[in-house]
């Protein structure tokens, strides 16, 4: 930049669903169709054993996947201990454990 302006252009927080990368979501819907039933209620996060000690938040992770915001997802999903308590309380019967495992596989395939 030839000129120093003393500020920069703020990046927009707008999510354009027409252009957002949706490959992760498509992979999950294919390999764990119950993911489509998630209503984002957050029961999984409220009961999360790992969430007691870390910032793991499965509700937020599914939201990020739906928005195509998948950067930095691997260290988040690796916090899961696969205890399955989230699956027991899910009111929509989502196989959350398989969702977590599928996310890990998708991250390897899509990276």
């Amino acid at each position, binding site marked *: *930049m*030839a*000129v120093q*302006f*003393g*500020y*920069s*252009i*703020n*990046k*927009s927080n*707008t999510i354009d669903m027409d252009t957002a990368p949706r490959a992760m979501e498509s992979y999950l819907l294919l390999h764990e169709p119950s993911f489509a039933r998630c209503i984002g209620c957050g029961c999984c996060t409220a009961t999360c054993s790992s969430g007691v000690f870390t910032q793991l938040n499965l509700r937020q992770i599914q939201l990020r996947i739906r928005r195509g915001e998948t950067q930095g997802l691997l260290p988040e999903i690796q916090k899961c201990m696969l205890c399955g308590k989230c699956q027991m309380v899910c009111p929509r019967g989502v196989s959350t454990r398989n969702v977590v495992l599928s996310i890990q596989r998708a991250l390897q395939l899509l990276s």
Partner: protein
Amino acid sequence: MKLAGKKRIWADYQKEIPQDNYFYVRSCIRQNFFPASEVTFLRILRQELGKDIYEHIHHTTCSGIGYHSDVIPLETTMTVVARQFALMTEAGYENYACSCITSFGLYSEILETWKHFPEVLEKVRRDLKAATGREFEVPKHLAHASDIIYKMRHEIASRARYKLVNRYTGQPLRVVEHIGCHYSKMFPSKGVGGAEYPYVLAGMVEAWGGEVVDYPERRHCCGFGFRQYLVQANRGYSVANTQKKFESMAPFKPDMIITNCPGCPYFLDRWQYVIAEMEGKTYGENGFGIPVFTYEEVAGLVLGYDPWDLGLQVHQTAVEPILDKMGVAYNPEKKYLGKDGQNLGHPETPAYSKVY
């Protein structure tokens, strides 16, 4: 764009614009940003259309910038505005016409306040009398200067030397019209066409031969917004607003932008240079920006005024592409000559955005 539906909506928001006898007040910042616009407005009304328009030497700021930046309380602003109305009353006028969009919004806000709270009006009358000895009448009509040009658009079109038509293709120029937020977003009934479909500039563009471009962020703010610009560190918000508009309009390939606000043409013009310097991106044809004009400048071009008399040399985004498309005659060697023939100096050449 389904014009039938829009015309029905526009019909609900038609305001009464006086035909003649205006008390005119200038903008604080336009005289620095685009100094020839207000002169051109007066020239068109007085010399072309033979209207009576009066300026008072003692007119001051309306204090709108201070009010919208949270440094002046509304009560003080009301008394300042009451003094402007006193000047109008003393000069024998009833039709108040202002150059600035923020002033227009502020006057609309104050007149509405006085209408609903007459005790506030009486207090302002007492305060002004005590402070200055002046008395005032509330204007019979309040018009923004663009309302007046809108009303006279067909008369201007009948005298047009040039049209908003691409002389190379014969097609209408594609024009983005950008309305200042304070024109009708606060008080939709005070603007021609309301807040959502303001017609004031679209009407000019159509009357002068152009084609209005509709695009997703058409009603988005230019990014000025006072507070987010006044602090340097916050200017990223301002330029981000402008960038959002340009990203939205660029696919529709507009030839030019017409505005009716002091800040909008300035920011849409200058931020194109900043975006080009920061990100190397330009939005016009062949590496140029999209030329930005005030409505007075466009009216002046249509009437055949010399582009350098219209002050187009102070635009940062090159205006020559549109002059060439319209076929406007201009002398490049006189671009940076003052009225007395002295050289005004040549601006530095930017690294990315192309200039003539």
